[in-house]
């Protein structure tokens, strides 16, 4: 058999080996990819420009129907509805709408409720302009063995990874990563490591808290960050910060895992609630950024020259006063990092061409409060939204609720459209995800 196969191989290679090489190069051409830069590398990619922005929106009592809803915006160039709401779907009640994510084939959009621990699944394949609610996972706490506060939804092959924020027993910050199949069936729960976790390097820093979870496939590593538990994030912010004991109940750690085995390997001390993780996309860029909400620092987690993973503080965001950095977006070329600051409503833009020495190159006032940002793959379009948490958003006139879109020319942001979610009686806009009628192959992205 070996001889026969070798003959076949050699002769076939002689005939079209060069062609195969050419096709391989074509297929990995980065210009063929598009999408939102913060998405999972396992996700099927949008071909060309995004056509829709899906906005997971918190209901506000007394405003419109008061319910959490999925709002669809038309952002297709040349569309008569460009910059307008073209569809909404309201759920029953309010669940603390927060983050979401697609399955890897991009046929479903999963949205999580931080307070009710429900997961709402939408079909965005049949008609991307009108997402259809197809399923709700109602018993998340029970089937996961006590994890609550499902946060992000991160596409993995044939399944999703859901990092949680809390647990049912004490509603504190000790929590878990949960996996579901794309069919919505429970697979596994992985509890965040603590000081007692055997074999964990840096176990003294492990606090069991969770927030974001993202993978660098090329290195087979998963990185997690840490926030706080349900009893804190459902409490009015003004009241919470007066409670010294409660303010101690925030995460101060990042954990590096073996992704394939889901086993934690190393814990890092990162004080002040490190939140979003942004892995670089470049083929040799083995690093990720995160920002600490309570201490306003930018951190880098990186593999050093000896192949050892490290974490270090690399910049202060917004001076020493504290601006509560929340969401971040790294450009696809790993050169530019956009950091949204809830405290003063500004986006700060850093040149991160040298990731160890970021330099702020621009800042702009987006609103009186600011939380999420989503950036197109070509780096030309950014979408911002305002809401952090129902009970942490600012009060009175400072409680602006918006989606505002901008173009970025490499030097400055110029507005393209803005939607006032209060005037539209929609609610508090949070996570924004891109949709399209043109979805390509689900080959892994640059990572």
């Amino acid at each position, binding site marked *: 058999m070996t001889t026969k196969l070798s003959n076949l191989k050699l002769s*076939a290679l002689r005939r079209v080996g060069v062609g195969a090489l050419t096709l391989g190069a074509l297929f*990995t051409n980065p210009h063929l990819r598009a999408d939102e830069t913060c998405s999972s590398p396992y996700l099927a990619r949008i071909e060309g420009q995004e056509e829709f922005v899906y906005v997971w929106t918190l209901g506000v009592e007394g405003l419109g129907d008061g319910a959490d809803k999925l709002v669809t915006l038309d952002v297709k160039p040349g569309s008569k509805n460009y910059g307008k709401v073209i569809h909404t779907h309201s759920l029953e009640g309010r669940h603390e709408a927060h983050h979401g994510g697609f399955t890897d084939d991009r046929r479903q959009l999963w949205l999580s409720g931080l307070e009710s621990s429900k997961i709402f699944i939408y079909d965005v394949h049949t008609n991307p302009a009108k997402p259809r609610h197809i399923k709700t996972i109602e018993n998340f706490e029970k089937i996961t063995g006590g994890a609550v506060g499902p946060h992000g939804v991160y596409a993995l092959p044939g399944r999703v990874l859901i990092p949680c924020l809390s647990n049912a027993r004490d509603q504190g910050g000790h929590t878990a990563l949960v996996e579901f199949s794309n069919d919505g069936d429970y*697979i596994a729960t992985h509890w965040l490591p603590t000081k007692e976790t055997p074999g964990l390097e840096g176990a003294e820093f492990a606090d069991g808290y969770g927030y974001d979870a993202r993978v660098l496939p*090329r290195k087979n590593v998963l990185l997690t960050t840490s926030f706080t538990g349900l009893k804190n994030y459902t409490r009015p912010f003004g009241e919470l910060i007066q409670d010294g004991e409660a303010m101690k109940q925030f995460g101060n750690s990042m954990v590096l895992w073996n992704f394939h085995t889901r086993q934690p390997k190393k814990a890092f001390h990162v004080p002040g609630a490190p939140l979003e993780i942004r892995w670089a996309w470049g083929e040799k860029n083995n690093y990720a950024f995160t920002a600490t909400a309570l201490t306003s620092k930018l951190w880098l987690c990186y593999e050093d020259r000896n192949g050892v993973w490290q974490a270090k503080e690399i910049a202060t965001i917004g001076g020493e006063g504290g601006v509560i950095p929340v969401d971040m977006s790294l450009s696809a070329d790993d050169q530019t990092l956009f950091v949204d600051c809830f405290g003063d409503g500004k986006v700060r833009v850093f040149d991160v061409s040298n990731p160890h020495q970021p330099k702020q190159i621009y800042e702009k006032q987006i609103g009186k409060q600011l939380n999420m940002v989503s950036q197109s793959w070509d780096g030309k379009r950014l979408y911002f939204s305002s809401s952090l948490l129902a009970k942490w958003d600012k009060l009175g006139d400072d409680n602006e609720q918006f989606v505002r879109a901008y173009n970025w020319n490499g030097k400055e942001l110029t507005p393209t459209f803005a939607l006032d979610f209060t005037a539209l009686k929609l609610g508090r806009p949070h996570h924004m995800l891109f949709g399209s009628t043109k979805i390509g192959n689900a080959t892994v992205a640059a990572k």
Partner: protein
Amino acid sequence: MKQTKLFLATTLAFVAIGGQVLAINSGRTPDHDYDVPTPGSYQLPVVKTAADGEVLDHRGRQLRLSEITKGRVTVMSFIYTRCAAAKACPMATGVLLELHRQSARDATLAKGMRLVSMSFDPENDTPQRMAMFANLAGKNRAVADWRFITTASQTKLQPILAAYGQAVNRKDNPNDPTGPLNHTLRVFLIDEAGNIRNIYSSGTLDVRLVLADVRTLLLESAAGELPLTAAAAVRKAGQIGSVAFQVKTAARVTNITDKQNPQPLEVLLTDASNGDNRATPVERASVIARIPVSALEAFGAADMDELARRFEGNKVIVTGIVATEPHPFRHDAQGRNQLRPVITVTDPGQIRTVNSQQL
């Protein structure tokens, strides 16, 4: 014919060009720059049951898909032979080809692993065309079984694709040089009982990882015996094993030596399957799964009593490192205590509640 040659050539080119990608013995590559975990050192929880359906083999014979997704650890790839995208079907077929080669050097793999390449393009991938691909497998019987299958029609195909979550769309340009179909790259790892245990895409389709996973399942199932009997589990002391039993006593064990600290220590899921009524069920147990108090939070139980009640009366398959202890009531011909298996469980994923057909 031309398209088939292109696919074969792209597959083989992938194997050759990506020699570094597939070189198991040489370790890391730029695309997979990490050490592979030791087989058996980690768990592969069940994702879902591998779906059945009506398929055709490369000779045109009709068979049930379940006939070739059970009984061995199976690596199944959905492909279409017109695909010329290097990181799609040719890549998947290249990985299966390398696994096939590995099986020629490893009798355990040859005996315990099966490879399946299934087309999602039945109009073009007829049994005759799949027969050409079967040449990849050769006729050497000392290697793993490799099946090349298709379906008789879209009607037969679509339920299978839906059940496996294999997305396929026609491209706007039917003459696209990389092939006329958009699709997710899906390769499935299926255990001997027919459960999907891992799903690979182009980002995770590292032949070293697939091989480690196959070997993990082979270790788990003792090369063809899933689940293990209690006696077989005893022979696997120190290795990963899956033991099936009915929980006849879910006992909470309390540290009675410290009256000031009545902290419950552990839950024992026991199968008290012998008939000695003079002993306690735990003493009679032929299998014990032990859940220490340190795992209480992982199970999300308020206390050990609740955890004990959770499993009472269930039929379960417990997977973990098998240890042994002397059985208090069973003896061999020389009067020595026989051994019984004990598996310490710290993760809920190590216990599956199952129906009676699986026991």
